[in-house]
């Protein structure tokens, strides 16, 4: 069964998103930074990556760009999750290769609807 990779440097956010998805029956892997996320993605090939944008070290925009350039990972859809609400940030995320944008705080119904669009 395919799983969803949740990338967020904030433990609470990671837990909340992971629990909400689990509650709806999705398999979930958690990553606290972009490096770990890319390593996990290469090893296990998730069905969807939920990517926080502003993270210390490698940020979400750069990590998405990397994933989209990697021929092995390019097919995996990436959905940006961020407290950033400016159009500029959303546009940057789209240019990096994000398929969709989820704003914080996460509303359960919204999250599940998005997840269902990418994962059977």
């Amino acid at each position, binding site marked *: 069964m395919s799983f969803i990779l949740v990338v967020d440097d*904030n433990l*609470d*956010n990671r*837990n*909340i*998103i992971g*629990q*909400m998805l689990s*509650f709806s029956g999705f398999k979930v892997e958690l990553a606290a930074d972009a490096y770990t996320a890319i390593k996990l993605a290469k090893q296990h090939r998730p069905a969807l990556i939920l990517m926080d*944008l*502003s*993270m210390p070290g490698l*940020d979400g925009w750069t990590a998405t760009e990397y994933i989209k350039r990697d021929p092995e990972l390019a097919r995996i859809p990436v959905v940006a999750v961020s*407290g*950033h*609400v*400016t*159009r*500029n*940030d959303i546009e940057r995320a789209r240019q990096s290769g994000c398929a969709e944008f989820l704003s*914080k*705080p*996460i*509303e*359960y119904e919204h999250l599940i609807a998005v997840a269902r669009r990418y994962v059977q």
Partner: protein
Amino acid sequence: MRFPIRAKLLGALAIDLILMMVLGYFAVHQMATMNERAVFIERHTIPSLDTVGDMTTAINRYRARQLEFLIYTNSGDRNRILDQMRAIESEMSGYFLTYRSLIGSPREQEQLDAVEAAWSEVVKANHERFIPAVRLVSDGSVQPFYSRMNPAYDALDQAMAGLVQENQRQARASLDVVAASYDTARTFIMFDTVVAIIISAAIGLVLSARIARRLRRLVEATNRVSAGNFVGSINEQIRDEIGDLARAFDQMLASLRHQRSELEDRNRALQESLARQAQLMEEIVRGKQAEAEAERARAAAEAASQAKSAFLATMSHELRTPLNAILGYAQLLHLSKSVAEPNAQYLERILASGRHLLTLISDVLDFAKIEQGALELEYSQVHIPTLVDELVAMTLPLAQRHHNQVQAYCPAEIDTIETDGRRLRQVLINLLGNAAKFTENGTIRLEVTSVQHGDVAGIQFAVIDTGIGIPRDKQDKLFQPFSQIDSSVTRRYEGTGLGLALSKQIVQALGGTIAVESDVGVGSTFTVWIPTRPVSAVNSSSLASKLPLVGEPA
């Protein structure tokens, strides 16, 4: 004296010349007189006296012949002597003839006539008495006869003496005339010369004194002028060269006065101008200082504003992070259904309050952005019917909580407009939320119409409620920040008091208008008008889209 000095000098010279000419004429005249007298003496007196001398000699010879006639007794001698007597008589006639042409006066004529008459007596006595008597007696005692001739000869002598005397008198008279002429000429020449000298001297002295006096006035005036005193004038009345000079000087003086007054005027004007300039400079300096101060104040204000805005952005992010966690965990609890009543209700309150807190934080951040002119507008094609559907769906839960109906009206011809859909939605949600909050058991209605303001086409959204309404005196303050009707309202109805102020700012940023109509107890109508496409003037005013975006930091 209205003549040039040259004319005056010429006049003086002319007077002198006339005097000289009179003198010359007179001298010539006197000399002519003297010459006439000399000629008279030469032509008349001298020949007369010569003739008289000849006549005297002839008369003596005649008497000598009478004596010889007495002495010589022979007839031959006597006839010869008689012939000689007759020759003398004819000689005398010639003398008389000669003398007649030399006679200069009637008296001389008389004297000559007397001489001739006396001579005729002598001749007559000789021939009638002496010679016959002598012829008769031949004894030689002839002396009585000879003596008898004496009276005739005496008369003749006397007449001759008169003639000579007359001649001398005439000569003396001529000499007297010459002497008198000489005296007169000498006196006249001396007089004339003296008069000429006096006149020349008088004219020269008077003229030079006057000229000197006038020149002195000129010099004094010149000294005054060179000392810087331009007051007064020479005022020459006389029309000559000095007069002309003086008038020219007066004109120069007047011109100098005029120039000096003009110069003083200009100087005054210049000083005033300088003073004004100095004042202006001072004002400019002061203005610059004020400007610099204003600039400093502005920079300080801007820095403070930047700091505030950065602080707000950071705070909102920092506030949102735990709030997100609270909301997330609350949702997880809610999902697990493990929370029993009444805690499940408390969980609902936590979620609602958390969501409210989130909008408050967003409002505060937006307001800070607008205040700073950093509100970012994203124009796109907004489909109005879809927007209306979303708004109704979002308003419905809150409205139903207070048992309100929600109605929407949107004519079919209204389609898309170009505006910032997110901001427009934010405004309308705020208005609809307010309507739902302040209305119970009523109706909340959203009406969309096409309304043209001037040349600009636009869409009007009217949010109409049947709620508590707003007193008229509070309506003007409605769109000012932090002004809910009163604090009790704030307590009763949740809100920062920023919602309407923020809505107004956003609507204005979009180039639209917002207005309210309300009656207490009847309800309120909020009207928002938005242009169908961006208005350039609005873009450049409050949006300040060129400013760097103040986004939420990570």
